[in-house]
């Protein structure tokens, strides 16, 4: 039966007996090369659904609550069986151990900037559009825009809005991480999706409250609306540095 992988640890810790993962399957531990993987047996086809994504995160969150910080694995990694997990971990041990060390004792927090209420910020305004109405010497100003032109202009407006959001988010990231410099173990650049901008930070577990307080004070002074989500298993810091 295929084996679904959730997260890795260095402790030989077994998951709680009642812990279930994707599709309600029981989570168990596989030990290899001094690493412990939390896995469960699944069917062949594990498509990403909201329920399954939640189940994956529940297992990683349980691992985070059980002891040391786990290295969370991306959704959807399936191996033919437990023995394949063991062999893959043996092959990748030299890469995985430094990553486990990087996140040891830390959790991820996500700082999220809300979508701006001004609808023009999403699509841009007519004034921001500059275009050359003369093409190849022909004055086309009297010609109505075709659907292709309108489509490209919509794309351009969207790109400009996304760039503006990321630039604004980067300003906030700089302000927050400067104010809480001693509390930030790691950070990643801002990302933007569907009007929401966010950036992850890696914080020591014992300093989560101190970080939240420092952020709240910075936001109060600067008047920035921001949500701090977490703590989470350090997904954003589990990949390449």
């Amino acid at each position: 039966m295929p084996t679904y992988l959730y997260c890795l640890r260095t402790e030989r810790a077994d998951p709680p007996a009642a812990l279930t993962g994707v599709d309600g399957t029981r989570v168990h531990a596989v030990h290899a090369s001094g690493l412990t993987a939390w896995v469960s047996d699944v069917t062949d086809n594990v498509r990403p659904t909201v329920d399954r994504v939640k189940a994956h995160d529940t297992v990683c969150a349980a691992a985070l609550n059980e002891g040391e910080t786990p290295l969370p694995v991306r959704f959807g990694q399936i191996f033919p069986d437990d023995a394949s997990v063991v062999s893959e971990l043996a092959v990748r041990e030299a890469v995985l151990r430094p990553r486990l060390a990087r996140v040891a004792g830390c959790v991820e927090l996500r700082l999220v900037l809300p979508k701006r209420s001004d609808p023009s910020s999403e699509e841009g305004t007519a004034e921001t559009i500059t275009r050359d109405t003369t093409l190849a010497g022909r004055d086309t100003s009297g010609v109505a825009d075709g659907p292709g032109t309108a489509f490209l202009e919509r794309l351009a407006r969207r790109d400009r809005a996304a760039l503006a959001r990321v630039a604004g988010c980067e300003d906030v990231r700089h302000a927050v991480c400067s104010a809480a410099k001693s509390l930030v173990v790691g950070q990643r650049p801002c990302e933007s999706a569907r009007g929401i901008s966010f950036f992850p930070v890696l914080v020591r577990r014992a300093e989560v409250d101190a970080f939240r307080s420092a952020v709240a004070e910075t936001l109060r002074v600067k008047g920035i609306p921001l949500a701090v989500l977490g703590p989470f298993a350090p997904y954003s810091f589990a990949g390449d540095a």
Partner: protein
Amino acid sequence: MSGEVLDNAPLELSDLINRVLDKGAVIAGSVTISVGDIDLIQLDLTVVLTAIETVRSAERRRREFDGDLNADLPVLPSD
């Protein structure tokens, strides 16, 4: 916290999906596309390839299910 200004339920779901689908360590999933003996492209991530319009349609359908966030609806379609 200033997070009160946000509608946190959909925000957290959106963040969860982004985090779990797009982040994390990748252990398996290495694909090398070769022609002859020459490696052209290597994909070492678990990716889902689909048409943008298909994703948008799925998102629209998902929004219709906003009242039931546990719906067993694909986050990304496989076709």
